[in-house]
Each structure stands twice: as structure tokens, then as C-alpha cells.
């Protein structure tokens, strides 16, 4: 017998099967955490958002009408909670701190390909920091769409369902966000003459 589908898990959880809900949590908590982390930009808040997402989803199991996939449903809750967290903050910081929690995971991801060249690592750190700054300068609309599509790897169709907008709008936002990111990086000195 294969693994139960998301819908089956939701049905079982709705019937009171906590284990089914636990399976659903294990299946999606990493993705939800990653999404929330890139939206709220801190690990602690991302953890809170992740837990709150599943708690709210559990409370709203009866409202799941099955018209969309459960993960779309979870994503929408996570995006809403992340946006609420962002908007409840003090005004946005101007600059990305050197210890921004987003920088190190990306450097660690690419460290194997860069080897141990300190200059290369420093340059990658600069680029990553500039990239974080560029993302932070984007509007909530563009940033959320960019995180969903480019970072989380969600398709335009799925992102459109989460954001409740046409696919074309998602594509336009992604294009616009990438354009603005490129502009920002060029202003920061990246993307100049070829090495």
C-alpha cells in the first residue's frame, strides 16, 4: 500500500486521526519553514510561523473544501502569517546586517563548489549580502512572489493559486522582481565587465 495522498491525510485528520495530521506536518514543515524563513528573514520567526501555520490549518480542517491541494492551502496560510509578521514589525531596516541568517546557509550550500578560496568566499558573501538587500528592497508583492517561485520552486500555476491571481500576473511579478534584483546588483558593482 502506497503512501496516503495529502487529501487522504486531510480527510483522516478531519476524522480525528492525529497521526495523519502528524504525517502531513512532517511532509510539509520543511517547505513551510523555508518559505517562512525567506519571507520573515529570521529563523525564530520562521519557526513560529511554521507552527502557527499547522495549528491554524488543524483548526480549519473543516473548512478545507478540497477545491485546491492541501499544500496550496497550507502555503496560503503560511504566506498570510508571514505577511502579518512582517507588517507587525517596526519599519524595515535599511541595510542587511553582516550576520543576516540568510547569508550563511547559501554560502554553505555553495562552499563545496567554491573550495576554500578565501577571496572567492568573500566575494560570494558580498554577492549574497547584496542579493539579500535587493530582495529586502522589493515590495511585499514582488518579494512574496519571488520567494514562492524562484526560491521555493513553486510553479506559476501553483503560485497563482496561493496568491489568487492569474498566472500571467505571477510571471510578470517574477520578471519584474528579477529585473529589479539585477539592477540592484549592477548598482552594487556586480555584473560589470567579464572577469
Amino acid at each position, binding site marked *: 500500500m502506497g503512501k496516503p495522498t495529502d487529501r487522504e491525510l486531510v480527510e483522516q485528520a478531519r476524522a480525528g486521526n492525529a497521526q495523519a495530521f502528524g504525517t502531513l*506536518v512532517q511532509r510539509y*514543515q520543511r517547505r513551510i519553514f523555508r518559505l517562512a524563513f525567506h519571507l520573515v528573514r529570521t529563523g525564530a520567526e520562521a519557526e513560529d510561523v511554521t*507552527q502557527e501555520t499547522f495549528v491554524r490549518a488543524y483548526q480549519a480542517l473543516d473548512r478545507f473544501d478540497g477545491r485546491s491541494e492541501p499544500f496550496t492551502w497550507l502555503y496560503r496560510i503560511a504566506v498570510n502569517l508571514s505577511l502579518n509578521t512582517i507588517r507587525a514589525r517596526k519599519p524595515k531596516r535599511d541595510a542587511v546586517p553582516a550576520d543576516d541568517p540568510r547569508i550563511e546557509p*547559501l554560502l554553505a550550500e555553495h562552499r563545496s563548489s567554491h573550495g576554500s578560496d578565501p577571496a572567492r568566499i568573500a566575494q560570494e558573501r558580498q554577492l549574497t549580502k547584496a542579493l539579500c538587500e535587493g530582495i529586502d528592497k522589493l*515590495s511585499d508583492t514582488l518579494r512574496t512572489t*519571488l520567494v514562492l517561485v*524562484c*526560491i521555493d520552486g513553486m510553479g506559476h500555476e501553483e503560485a497563482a493559486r496561493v*496568491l489568487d491571481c492569474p498566472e500571467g500576473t505571477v510571471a510578470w511579478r517574477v520578471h519584474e522582481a528579477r529585473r529589479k534584483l539585477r539592477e540592484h546588483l549592477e548598482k552594487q558593482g556586480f555584473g560589470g565587465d567579464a*572577469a
Partner: protein
Amino acid sequence: MSPQDKTDKTDLGSKVDTLLGSWPAPHVDDAAWEERAASIVAAAQAAPPADDAALSALLAPPSLPPEAGEAERLVASEGPARPLLSGERTMSQQDSNSGSSAKPPESMPMSAAASKRPSLKELAARASQAGASRPSIPGSIPPASISKPPSEAPPPPVSRTPLPSAPPPRLSETGKGKEDSGVVDLNVINKTATAEQIAAAEKAKPATHDLAFEGDEKVAAASAGNVKSIAEAREKKAEKKGGGATWGILVAVVGIAAGVAIVMRGQSPKQNTTTANVGQEKPQVAVEAPKPVEQKIAEAPPPASTGLSLDALPTEPAEAQKPAQPTGGGPATDSKVAAATPPAGGAEAQQAPAAPAGPAPTIGAKPGDLAGAMAQAVGGSTEKNDGTGEMVPAAGGNKGGNQTIPEQPSQGSVASAIGAVMPGAKACVAGADDVSRAQLTFSSSGTVTNVSVTGWAASNGQSGCVKAALKGANVGPFSKPSFTVGATIRP
């Protein structure tokens, strides 16, 4: 080593994509994930029942305001499916901007039928046909400023009035009313004729020598009686019709006068081109308006033949609140825009005859920015934007500075901005038995800096949710330090 030495410009896009696509979250052990999952399930089971409103808000689509420039794409691909929101631009604004913007309009998809609006002459014709008993015309311009008598309430402020979705009623249909049909039912007259009339008709026998067929005197007599009866009935009808027509003329004249007065009041100090055009056309309208009463309706000249239409009136604030109707009839100021307009059988071109000859207003280039347009009319600079269609923020201090920014956000932009975030706020108060009110304070950059919530939401712990929802509103930059507006949130 400078960053330029390390990154190829041509590869920057793919480099960014690579970085974004492989950007992980902080590493967490599998055991920690297991532990977290268990704690999440425990927390979910232990959590008290959630508030319906809060859940609804979370399950609703994220309230993300559309980006500037997104409207053009939406209009091009989806049509006028929803009202314009904050940051979006109407087609009329595109028209006004196109003169200084290098970016060509992407499309003008509105059909001519949907965008065509009746001219003053057409309205006058309808008013004269309908008379006082028919104060409004469904599917046409609201009559508050056109055909309502002065004794009635003044026209309401700018309201969300959709453009006519159904075609306006045909002129010929207006003649179906009993009083105005002009049809004389001979059978009814014969039946209602008195004996005296019949006798008089027989006595007179008018034209029997000429009209009678070979010796058919009975027929001639009956015909003579009928002719007299008909004549009398027509006299009565004429009197009746004359009264209705008089009322119609009065209503039409009052309506036109009201319209012209609004135009003159709004723009007479400026004496700009639009006012001049309206003023030139005014006598013509005054002469033309009674025509439909005297002529047959079907013979009425084409609506746009006078060259004066409502499109020439300064309806910019109303334009800003209309749903996305890109060819909303705004003055066609740019030949490119005019060329891009879908073929409308010439009606489109005739609908916008009062286009200002001067440069397109770009000051405060924003939907519903009447202040900017007026500033342009009195000689404001026609500074070019950068072609991206994006507004220059007030705080930016670059380019035009405050010269290109209105003193305060227009009513349309405020309504659009609040309308964009209102669904989220409504979701917070879903199920409420009373309204909630919020005071939104916008900073000069157009963003919400403060929201104060009163009413049901405040007394039921939903003020945070409402605030979070309303804080996403953006009215675009303006020059005042702040701008406060109230909003009522109904469940």
C-alpha cells in the same frame, strides 16, 4: 579584488537564478524536525477553537497590493475584470501620460461599444422624449448633473459608477410610450365619437365630391366623420404632446445648463482648451437640443455630430474610480494612442473631440489626479518620467520632486487603495454584528503609517487583524506630510 572582476554581467541573471533556486533555510537535524512535528501536532490539538474571523483572514488570499505597471498587463490580458487598485493606472491616465512617456501603450482592448458614452445631444434627445416622468436613463451617465431639475438633490460626490454595460436604449424605443407615440388609433376614435360629431360630419361631408368612389356615398360620409374625429383627436394629441415636449425641452435645457455650469465652474478660471471647446459648442447645443422634439426621433442626427460629448467634461475623479475601462473616453491626446485604439467605426474619434491641444498633463500622473491635471493646465512643467510608468516618490527627491506630486492623494486613489485591502479587513470582521471603523494615516510616500480601529473589531480583539490588513494600502506619494482618511468596515 572588486566584484566586477568576478561577475560577468551577462551571467548575472542566471547567477541570481542559481542562487535563488538553491537558497536553503538554516539546516535543522532530522531529529529536530521530528521533535518539531510532534510539538506542532500537540499544539494543534491543545489549541482552543479558533476565531472564525481570524481563520477566514488566514485562509483568504494574501492581500498584496498590485505593483505599478501591473495594471497595464492586467488590462491587456484579462480585461476590466476588477476595479483598479492602488498604483494601477487607468487608460485615461495612459492617454495623458503618453505624450511624455516613451513607453507605448500595450493595448487598448476596450470595445467601442463598451467605451462609447452618450453625448449631451443624445441625452438631451432622450430627456425631451422621456419628459419629466422619466428622470433617469438606465445604463447611461447618471442624470444627477445632466437632466435633474435644480430642485432635486445635488449630484452625489464621486461614486463608483460603472460604465454602461448594456447598450443604451434605442431612440426609437422611447416612442413606445402612450403619450409620445404619435399613433392615432382610428378604431378607438370611431368608437368614442359622439352622435353629434357623426351628425356634424355627415352634414359637412367635406370633400365628398372628390373623395367618394363611384357613388359610394355611405363610405364618403363615414370617411368624412372619421376625418373630423381624427382631426379633433389630433388636436388634442398635439396639445398633449406639446405639453410633454415643452417639459422635455425645459428638462433638456436645465440639464445642459447644469452641465455647462459644472464645466464653467470647474475650469473657467483656467480658460484652458477644454473649457474653450465646451464654450464654443454651448450655443450649438442650445440650438440643437430641442431638435429631437420637433423632428422624428429616427431622424435625429448622430450623437457625436455636434462635436460635444460628455467625454469633454472634466470627469477625471470619476474616471479614477471606475473599473478598468482603458478606453474610458478620455481625451485622445496622443496620436499613438489614437492609432492603437481598436476600430470603432469613427465613433471613438468623434467621442473625444475636445482633446486639449496642449501637451498631455503629466503632473501628478496618477489615476484621478485632478489636481495634477489642473496644475498642468495652468502651465506646470511637463516633465518626462523615466518611461517605466512608476511614480517618483516624494521622499526620493530626485527628478521632479514635489512638483510632480499632488498635495494630497486623490479621492480615487484613496478609494482604490482602501478597496484593495478592504477584503482582508472584512475577513477580520466576518460574522460581526456591527460595523468597525478605521482611521488610516498615510505618510507622504503613500504608505499607511498608522491605523486606529474602533467599533466591533476593537471591542472583539480584531483590531490587530484589521490594522494588518489595512496597512497594506498605498495611495502613492503626495506632498502633504500626512493624510488621514476614515474607512468603515462592514462585515
